[in-house]
């Protein structure tokens, strides 16, 4: 049963600079932030290490931090430039009964995160959903396709309305001849 | 070989047990009720169609703000000081003409979030659940008691009243400037 600080110490000792820091003030749970392209190695370590044993990924959620600055793109829609997307991994160890949250933030222009699919199989669909709704690319994911939105959503939508959960999302006018706005 | 006979015996025995139970159910009376003739008595906290008691409504817009699907539209017009709008049942003096109070029951999700914040408890849920329509627009219920012309007339009064007030204010603003001029 390890507290968040010991886990952070172990990770810091193991990976050095790719662990960016621990954030304890914001309420309810301390969050360890990790460099997006090292997340695969860190997760493999988190799972294999004998006194960590995080064998079940509870939830993987992509969040649009919307911390860029607002500008207008070519055809006048208001979009957010810069800023980050972050992906939170809530991990839990069934055997040792401790929990930790890992945060990874990538830039908004070309969001790339290492996929943890072959460490925890349940991440497969969570990552596909994060890609589908937010547009975060997960490198070497077996089949990164849309999962919830219709498959041909890209043909009918402009750049701004491609991923619905982005803060600057705008409804497309028509989808296959059907009027989208209610 | 033993497994073979056990399977046959289990096969026959469990089928007969199942049949005994269904045979027993052949004679138990039906549990279902004949809906249109026999109606189920609904509990009094039932949440079906909303009803707004318009003479209690003070047009405070609390319910339309609380509604998650925003299916309540209210438009009000301020009353001129002279007019008397009557008093709500719990003694509050009404100050706004409610010209439009529409609830769109096609969008309403019957979550009862609008009933709690209402100060005069004029919006509450009845237990009527058979109000299906052929045309979706008929599901938009208009609760406002003012007819079209009255609403127009109230609006005109109010505009006229604000125009007069504007004029007086302008005049008042103009007057002190003269005083300053006169004073300086």
């Amino acid at each position, binding site marked *: 049963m390890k507290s968040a600080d010991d886990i952070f110490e172990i990770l810091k000792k193991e990976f050095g600079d790719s662990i960016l820091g621990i954030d304890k003030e*914001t*309420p309810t749970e301390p969050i360890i932030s990790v460099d997006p392209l090292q997340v695969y190695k860190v997760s493999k370590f988190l799972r294999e290490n004998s006194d960590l044993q995080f064998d079940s990924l509870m939830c993987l959620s992509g969040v649009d931090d919307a911390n860029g600055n607002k500008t207008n793109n070519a055809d006048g829609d208001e979009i957010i430039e810069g800023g980050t997307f972050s992906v939170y991994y809530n991990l839990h160890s069934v055997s040792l009964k401790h929990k930790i949250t890992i945060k990874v933030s990538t830039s908004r222009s070309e969001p790339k995160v290492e996929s943890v699919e072959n460490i925890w199989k349940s991440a497969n669909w969570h990552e596909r959903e994060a890609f589908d709704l937010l547009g975060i690319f997960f490198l070497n994911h077996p089949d990164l396709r849309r999962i919830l939105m219709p498959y041909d959503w890209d043909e009918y939508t402009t750049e701004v309305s491609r991923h619905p959960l982005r803060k600057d999302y705008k409804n497309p006018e028509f989808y296959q001849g059907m009027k989208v706005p209610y | 070989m033993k497994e073979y006979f056990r399977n046959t015996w289990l096969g026959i025995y*469990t089928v007969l*047990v199942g049949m005994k139970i269904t045979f027993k159910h052949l004679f138990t009376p039906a549990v279902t009720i004949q809906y249109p003739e026999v109606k189920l008595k609904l509990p009094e906290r039932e949440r079906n169609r909303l009803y707004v008691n318009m003479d209690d409504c003070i047009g405070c817009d609390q319910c339309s703000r609380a509604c998650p699907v925003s299916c309540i539209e209210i438009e009000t017009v301020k009353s001129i000081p002279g007019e008397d709008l009557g008093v709500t049942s719990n003694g509050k003096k009404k100050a706004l003409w409610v010209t439009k109070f529409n609830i769109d029951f096609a969008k309403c999700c019957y979550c009862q979030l609008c009933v709690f914040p209402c100060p005069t408890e004029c919006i509450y849920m009845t237990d009527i659940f058979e109000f299906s329509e052929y045309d979706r627009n008929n599901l938009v219920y208009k609760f406002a008691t003012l007819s079209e012309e009255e609403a127009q007339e109230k609006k005109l009064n109010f505009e006229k009243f604000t125009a007069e007030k504007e004029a007086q204010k302008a005049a008042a603003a103009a007057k002190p400037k003269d005083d300053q001029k006169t004073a300086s």
Partner: protein
Amino acid sequence: MALKTEHMVLNMGPQHPSTHGVLRLELEIEGELVRKVTPHLGYLHRCFEKHAEAMQYNQVVPYTDRLDYLASISNNLGYALAVEKLMGIEVPERVEYIRVIMSELQRIASHLVAIGSNGADIGALTPFLYLFRDREHILSIIEETCGARMLYNYIWVGGLSHDIHPDFVRKTKEFCNYFKPTIVELDNLLSYNKIFIERTANIGVLPVDTAINFGASGPTLRGSGIKFDLRRDDPYSIYDRFDFEIPVGKGLMGTVGDCWDRYYVRIREMEQSLRIIEQAIDHIPDGDVQSAIPKRIKPPKGTVYKRVENPRGELGYFIVSDGSVNPFRVKVRAPSFVNLEVLGELCKGYLVADIIAILGSIDIVLGEVDR
């Protein structure tokens, strides 16, 4: 020269009598043997997460009802606990007791639908109607308390929308005594029926490591023999005060972790829920259920992940709040969404008829899968 054979792609499409909602399974079959199953989702996607970002905290509760519409009380409970943990609200005892009783009643009602439709998929239509007759009792008890039969909007952040109805306690006790013999009847009619056993034993065996690796939870995980129940291992509200054991698949009729085990775990779980209700029903303290409800819910800036034992598994809410009145991001970890991933692994090499039995035993609800 080998005969060139091609797999026939059978489309168990969104409109099919036994896919528990609008799920499309693309089966690659060879004769009757299924080689590959690829589920296609998204037919019931109603953008719950986008809606939640535009609503205030208390307005999201009716939306959470519609996630897993067969167990809406535990959806509300999960969301309410998450926001309460974020704001650090302490809820009075009476609310805790009523929440436990209500979510256990809801668990029984949801298991009744799960077992009924699992039996109907395999062909036994009569138990389905008997179980719905029993479920009617629970729905009328809840309807008397909060006015709605399925989508309650009952558990709010910090309390409840209505206090329990005066004869709620009497009716629940009546239901407990009424329900015990019907479980025995169901056992004889379906559980030990040779044809039902033949159709479900040794079918869709979920080994332990794939279960944990795929993050399966709830009866699907416990069917494979792992004693993991959030009410016991990660206790929330006041579950640690009641003693109940966690039924686990033991492979009575075949290997551990087959369809029959998952089905049987659900029946024993219903009995355990009855035990919890009987322990809780007599000690409901009095008090005001709406005392701890904050006038204006404005949680501090931060994130929270709270999980609850929904009848289908581990339902988790990950809420990011930026200090304003509207939640910044609400992510729902739906148990059916994760359990459905196991289906691809589970269905290799079985017959078309088994796919239906396996899908019925995993018990998914598409409202929760597609959000």
